[in-house]
């Protein structure tokens, strides 16, 4: 990841700006936050375009083909492509190899059913025209229906049936220690599941069961928290290590210089604020 000296300075500045949030909300953080929002919104749009729309939509409508061999409808269809090429040359490229003209993108098989996807996508854009904006609901409906159908099976299979299958353990394995462990696990799953009964009042013996369930859930939450602490600290170490790297001579002492400047500015701005508050 060689980003040059200018890159290193910007990276260090942005890193320190975000870290300055820990002190308080300040100009540096606000600036970094807004730059971040701007850059990332454009980044994801760019990625979606070049990694999704271009190869998967246009690439499926017009896979690369040798123009001279086309006939009938396809000839007309690639004619449209040519028009698009004339307007947006970068997105709809044409190649000429040894005098043979190729039009189209990539080598996926042609699939004109993607015209429906294109249509649904365009419906989304109708939002900009209030009168026919409601058509976008059709696209939303497609997305929601797809999500419901896809996830229903996925979760039922792996999270419900799969986990039940994994929990079918012998209560007695022939060895005391592992038997106890299995029983601990099974009691946990059953009582934890019971905690999620909504239509039964949790009282008396049932309350005890759901209480045991909560304890198990809490052990799980504690453990996840512990693991997360570990992962998060590792990340911070990585960031600090980069900052130490960029304080070297080959990057023009970016870290120490920027750090000092930022501290000075922060101290000055907070000092200026305080008298105002006193008045």
């Amino acid at each position: 990841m060689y980003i040059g000296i200018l890159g290193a300075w910007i990276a260090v500045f942005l890193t320190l700006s975000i870290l300055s949030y820990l002190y308080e909300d300040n100009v540096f953080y606000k600036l970094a936050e807004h730059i971040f929002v701007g850059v990332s919104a454009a980044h994801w749009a760019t990625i979606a375009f070049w990694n999704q729309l271009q190869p998967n939509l246009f690439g499926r409508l017009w896979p690369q083909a040798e123009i001279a061999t086309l006939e009938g409808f396809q000839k007309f269809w690639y004619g449209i492509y040519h028009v698009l090429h004339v307007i947006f040359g970068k997105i709809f490229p044409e190649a000429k190899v040894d005098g043979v003209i190729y039009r189209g993108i990539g080598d996926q098989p042609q699939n004109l059913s993607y015209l429906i996807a294109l249509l649904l996508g365009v419906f989304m854009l109708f939002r900009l025209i209030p009168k026919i904006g409601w058509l976008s609901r059709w696209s939303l409906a497609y997305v929601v229906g797809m999500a419901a159908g896809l996830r229903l099976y996925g979760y039922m299979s792996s999270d419900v049936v799969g986990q039940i299958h994994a929990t079918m353990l012998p209560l007695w394995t022939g060895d005391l220690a592992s038997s106890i462990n299995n029983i601990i696990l099974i009691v946990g799953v059953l009582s934890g599941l019971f905690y999620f009964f909504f239509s039964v009042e949790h009282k008396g013996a049932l309350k005890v069961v759901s209480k045991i369930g909560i304890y198990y859930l809490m052990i799980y939450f504690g453990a996840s928290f512990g693991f997360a602490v570990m992962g998060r600290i590792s990340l911070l170490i990585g960031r600090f290590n980069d900052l130490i790297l960029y304080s070297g001579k080959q990057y023009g002492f970016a870290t120490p210089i920027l750090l000092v400047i930022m501290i000075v500015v922060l101290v000055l701005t907070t000092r200026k604020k305080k008298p105002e508050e006193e008045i």
Partner: protein
Amino acid sequence: MMLKRTVCLLLLLLGTISFAYADLEIHAEAKAKEPDGSIVNITITPIKGASKYKVEKSIAEGEWLTVLTTSGLSLDTNIGNDVQTRFRVQALDENDLVIAEAFSESIQTEAMWFNTRRLNRFIALMLISGVILYYISRARKNKKIYLRPVAGLQAFEEAVGRATEMGRSVLFVPGIMDLDQVETISGLIILGHVAKMTARYEADLNVPVSRSLVMESGRETVQASYISEGRPDLYSSDMVNYYTDDQFAFSAAVDGIMLREKPAAVFLQGKFYAESLIMAETGNSIGAIQIAGTGSPSQIPFFVTACDYTLIGEEFFAASAYLGDDPKLLGSIKGQDIAKALLMLLLVFGLITETIHTGIYNSDGFFLNLKSSGNDPSAVYEIISEASDKNINDVVAEYSNLGKEGKAVYIAKNKVTKGNALKILKKLEKEGAEVVLDENLDLKIKKNKWNLYKNLFAGS
């Protein structure tokens, strides 16, 4: 002239060789019971003098695609479904010259119309959704359904009310994922209920979202809620705003909104990842009432520690039944409960069969893997000889050379249980041997019918 002659001679020679060993054969067969079809098993009848075989498949008239060049005689490969395909094999000698050629009969594979391997999942689906549907229909006939109180859900109205009193806004984040996640949809459903409350209380509502589709759907939701409460005048599309798709840029933006607008109530309801704690901690630092809800198990701990109330797992999905007053929703919650009870019953039955299976009947699956005999092998050999009911001399002969991977020690049939195996393992370790307990799953599954029940739940 000379060249021509040599070539002729060579060809002749080749011809003779291929004639001499003309028994090269290739046989292709569609693999049975493959739900997705397309898998073909190929076997080659070898010939003398061949060091490698080049297998090709037909893709069009006269066009061949190399599948693999191999020295093995059996392989699996893929072909397109519903297309007649032939295979060709060429035997190559050491110098990569073709010495023989053979063709397979043409075959065709087909995907199934029903994936029998998923039959158990299909039954589970029918069962679970059947139960839920039944209770929904029952609820329609006006049967009262009790729901136990959930603290987090009772706090919704209070939080919105407090925001109104303080003259501050209500912030609602429906997660950071797109509309293709059920959690996001669930978050939007909850947003609908919260928007009704803010409409009633005339509180300001601010919904930052990180996906454009969620923005559109969120606007629809909020508008519908304001209309249904009779306050379309209070609705504006500026309530729901898109910032960026990026996880951390979005959480930076939400932090900014929290710090500068200081909302009195913060709802974090949807699918969250690592940014959950950034938002929840910032919300906490500005003193807002925070109610979180998510189906992401790994993020619940952070919400539990940093928020006032958290809807844990299934509670989050049940929220809309609590917040609304549709009997159908109550019915579906009841149905989910019954499905859960059924699953628990099945699980308990599975526990019993497994216990019978492992603890009492089956034990053949367990064996010990001896990796090293330690400094004093003779004691080790004695233990092994006793455990496996084998002559001590045979044992010495068998285990004196263990190799890299170690050697298996099978305990005599009448003595095998996992506990016994562990006892023997400890004895061996005491003598300085290096042993691990291993389990042969194939043996286990074949061995016992009690295991069949558990297998009903296997698959994906």
